[in-house]
Structures are given as C-alpha cells and as structure tokens.
C-alpha cells in the first residue's frame, strides 16, 4: 500500500481549525513522514486532486463556491471528516439563518447597512462576494460524512487522536469528552 493521501479543506469558517492543526507541533513532522498532504490551504496546490484517502473539512457550507468545492471533495475522497463546529453544526456562520428565508440578502443588509458605522453600502463589484446560499448548512446536511470532530476549534490532541485512527488503518472515531462542542 502506498502512502496515505490526506487533504484539508477550508470552507465557511475562521481557519481556527487549521490553526489548531498547526498546533500539532512535532507530530506534524511524524505525520509528514507517513502521509502525503495532497491538498490544503497550508500548501500550494490549486486543484483538489483525485483519490484522496482522508479529508478534514473545516467550515460550514455558506455560498456557491463552498458548495461546488464540497461536491468535488466528496466525489474524490474516501473518508470525509467534518472538522470543527462550523462543519458539524453550522456554528457561528449559521447564525444568519435566524434572519429568515431571505437570510442571504438580510445578512448583507444587516452587516453593511444597518450596523455599519460608516460607508453604508453593499459590496457590488462583480465576483467580490460569492453568491450566498439561502441557508448555511453543516457538511452532513449536504453530503455524506464518515466522521465528526466537534470543537471550536478542536484541540490539537483531538486532531491527533483522529489522525492516529487513520494511520493505524482504523475507521476514524472520537469518543467521550473528545466529542464536546464549543
């Protein structure tokens, strides 16, 4: 068997989960010796490749770009892991769902007009904001997910526990307090 092909993806989140991934410190060196990191915001690869064994996916599905990316990732990945509270629950990005059925319009109105201190106008330049979805969704509401890693962000210890399952060829699964949200 060749080396495991691992990826990490960043959708609608703050990148805190990826910062926590970097907190793995020296374990990252062990990891680099055992797996190939084939796609990640932390490395310079433009296109999500085929045949990825395990992908940690951070963030909720907030806009068209997120959605298209997620569908590609699902198609090209064997084991998809919801990485952090935004991916698992929608978390902070999903707060805008409380603004109702037209939350994509309402959230821009709220952020750029109603609550703006100065320069009250909507960003209008073409392509500057990807088309927002009407409802922010956790990953598993859109595609099937094999494992869940709650936490905002999940601690490096939690990320390591899950990656160790993967390295030992077991299905990734966290238990007990490792499942705590927040």
């Amino acid at each position, binding site marked *: 068997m060749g080396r495991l092909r691992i990826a990490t993806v960043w959708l609608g989140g703050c990148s805190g989960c990826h910062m926590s991934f970097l907190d793995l410190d020296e374990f990252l060196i062990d990891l680099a010796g055992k797996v190939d990191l084939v796609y990640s915001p932390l490395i310079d690869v433009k296109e999500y490749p085929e045949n990825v064994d395990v992908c940690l996916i951070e963030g909720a599905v907030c806009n068209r770009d997120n959605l298209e990316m997620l569908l590609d990732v699902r198609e090209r990945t064997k084991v998809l892991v919801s990485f952090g509270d935004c991916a*698992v*629950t929608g*978390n*902070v990005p999903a707060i805008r769902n*409380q*603004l109702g059925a037209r939350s994509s319009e309402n959230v821009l109105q709220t952020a750029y007009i109603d609550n703006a201190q100065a320069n009250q106008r909507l960003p209008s330049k073409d392509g500057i904001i990807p088309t927002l979805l009407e409802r922010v969704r956790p990953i598993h509401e859109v595609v099937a997910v094999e494992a869940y890693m709650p936490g905002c962000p999940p601690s490096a210890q939690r990320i390591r526990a899950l990656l160790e399952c993967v390295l030992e060829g077991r299905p990734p699964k966290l238990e007990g307090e490792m499942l*705590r*949200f*927040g």
Partner: protein
Amino acid sequence: MAAKTLNINGKQVSADEGATILEAAIEAGIKIPTLCHLDGVYDAGACRLCLVEVTGVNKLLSACTTRIAEGMEVHTDTEQLRKYRRMTLELLFAERNHTCSACVSNGHCELQALAWQNGMDHVRYDYCFPRWSVDASHPRYGLDHNRCILCTRCVRVCWHIEGAGTKNVAGRGAKSFIIDDLAQPWGDSETCTSCGKCVIACPTGALFTRGSTVAEMERDPSKLAFIVNARERKQWVV
C-alpha cells in the same frame, strides 16, 4: 416509613415507599442522566432524559416522576434507551440556537456535557434556527431565549424556594417561552426580588449574570438544595 424492594439493572434495591425510581437509583449508586431534575425542588418530567424501561409497561417512563412499587423491574441503560436519549438531546439542540462556542456557559453547561456523555457527535435533524430575543432589561441578570430548553428549573425555584412567583411559562409546544410576571421585560417586574436563584438553577446559558462573556458563566446549583435542607430539616450541611 415502609420500605419497598425493586430491581434496577439486575441489582436488588430498597427505598422508602413514595420514592421515585430516580431517588432509588441515586441511593443505590446507579446513575441515570437527568437535565430538568434539580435537588431541592419537585420534579417536572420535562426533559425526558431520565426515561427508563419498566418490565410489563409498554411505554418508557421518566424516572424522576415515577414512584417505585414492590417487585418493580427497571432497566436504565438499554440500547433502546441510549438511542432515545441521543435523539432527545439532538432535538433539544435542533430546536433553538445553542451555539456552544459563543455561549456564556461554554464548558460549564449541563446540556453540552450530556451531549458528549451520550455520544452525540452531530445532530441528524435539521436545525430550526428560530428567532428569539435576549431580555437584558434586568440590572443584574439576563435571559437568552436562544439557549432555553424549557426545563422549568428557574420557574420551580422562583415559586417554591424564593416564593416570588415571577417566572412562568407562556405559549405552547416548541413556541413556549419563559416569562416574567405578565410577559413583561424582566427589569419591569414588580415581584422579582433579584435573588438570582433562577440563574443558579439554569442548566444552560439561558439565564446569566450580566457582564459575563463566553465561557465565563459558572454556577453551583447545590446551593439551592442547601437552602431547602436548612429550611426544612434544620440541617446546615455544607
């Protein structure tokens, strides 16, 4: 008082006549998950987490409101119960906006702890994302309806320990909500004594001390049982 003997998870247990299954289990060192139960006030059977199986009864019963009977056979930890407990927790999370990461009670929340203790790694139901407000009209405390699970612990301590009768429940079903007096801003309440017992009783981040930010809200509900014990039995057990 006469004792009754029953069987919980294969263990022979005896407890006072009139005790609930939950009380008998606690005395025997058997843990049943609870959320709306609060030492010091009567039980309401509101949260359904303490559901148990009783042989010969074809529905699940809440351990906190079911009295023991001689020869009763109770199971508290079967596969069916674990499945239902997890569903109940998922429904509680889906019903309102429990954004743990941005909650005053993050890390000290009974709902959050029950979720991981019962293996809830995600919620399978669609979240409702209802629009609820925060009542910040009281000078010392706040009420965030987004985090409320309608356990009524605040209502029971307000009526039955403090005797003020400020807190109540209005509405029906999932649209029920906690009110003060005649559904007016908490700060305008004429009956609230600002004792803070409701805040101590809250299992989530729904009631909080003003000025607390994320993860800062800690409380000690055993203070409430202490007051009741001192008042009713004249025992000052710290």
